[in-house]
């Protein structure tokens, strides 16, 4: 369990760091170039159709600028990602300082929770609706 926990925490921190760098570079180039020109989405660059999370960078940038409605318009997933980017490092430092496994245990429980049909089906439906909205908006 110890190695699994450390692996997960290392991975999450790495992921957050990559996210921060991505958002920082996006923030500097927005809105002149946007994030359309950057390589970020395999689906978008190969098929020219936006993927379910296209627009998340623009959404996060709008949120940081204080434009909540704009961020909701670009992609609601961006708000979720910003929340995760803020909460995860704090939670990991809490676990490290107090020598606890709370985030790891929460992650394992969340995995089991998400696998339940009653949760997975509405979640998939929401993602698909968001995807259709993305295509409709032409992100």
């Amino acid at each position, binding site marked *: 369990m110890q190695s699994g926990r450390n692996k997960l925490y290392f991975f999450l921190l790495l*992921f957050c760091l990559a996210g921060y760098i991505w958002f920082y570079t996006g923030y500097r180039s927005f809105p002149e170039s946007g994030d359309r020109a950057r390589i970020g*989405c*395999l*689906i*978008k660059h190969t098929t020219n159709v936006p*993927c379910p999370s296209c627009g998340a960078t623009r959404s996060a940038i709008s949120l940081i600028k204080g434009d909540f409605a704009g961020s909701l318009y670009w992609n609601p997933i961006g708000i979720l990602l910003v929340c995760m980017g803020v909460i995860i490092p704090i939670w990991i430092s809490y676990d490290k300082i107090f020598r606890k496994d709370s985030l790891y245990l929460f992650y394992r429980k969340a*995995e089991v929770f*998400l696998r339940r049909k009653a949760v997975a089906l509405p979640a998939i439906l929401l993602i698909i609706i968001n995807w259709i909205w993305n295509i409709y908006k032409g992100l």
Partner: protein
Amino acid sequence: MDAQKVDMFIMSNGKFFESHQVAQIRDRLLHLDEAKWPLVQSLQFKDPTISLIISLLGGSLGIDRFFIGDTGLGVGKLLTCGGLGIWAIVDWFLIMDATREKNMEKLQRILY
């Protein structure tokens, strides 16, 4: 357990595990109680080749991670366009080993 049964299991399921794990699995199965044989035999493992195909086709949506049972990482991949496309490409090379690792975890739950 009977060596013939164990060898049959290894022959039909060897491809689902890392090569260095096969000898260990064989050894462990030989010392396993006969009563657990039906349970071991009924286990369904994920095929690494299938997960590679899924990763090539739907890696950006995290479907490969969902397929092998890594729901948390699958959600992470789905919400970030396959980790900005980079993670999706990295996973083309990692997913087969990750699948074998997951299969081993599944078997270990019965063996230990």
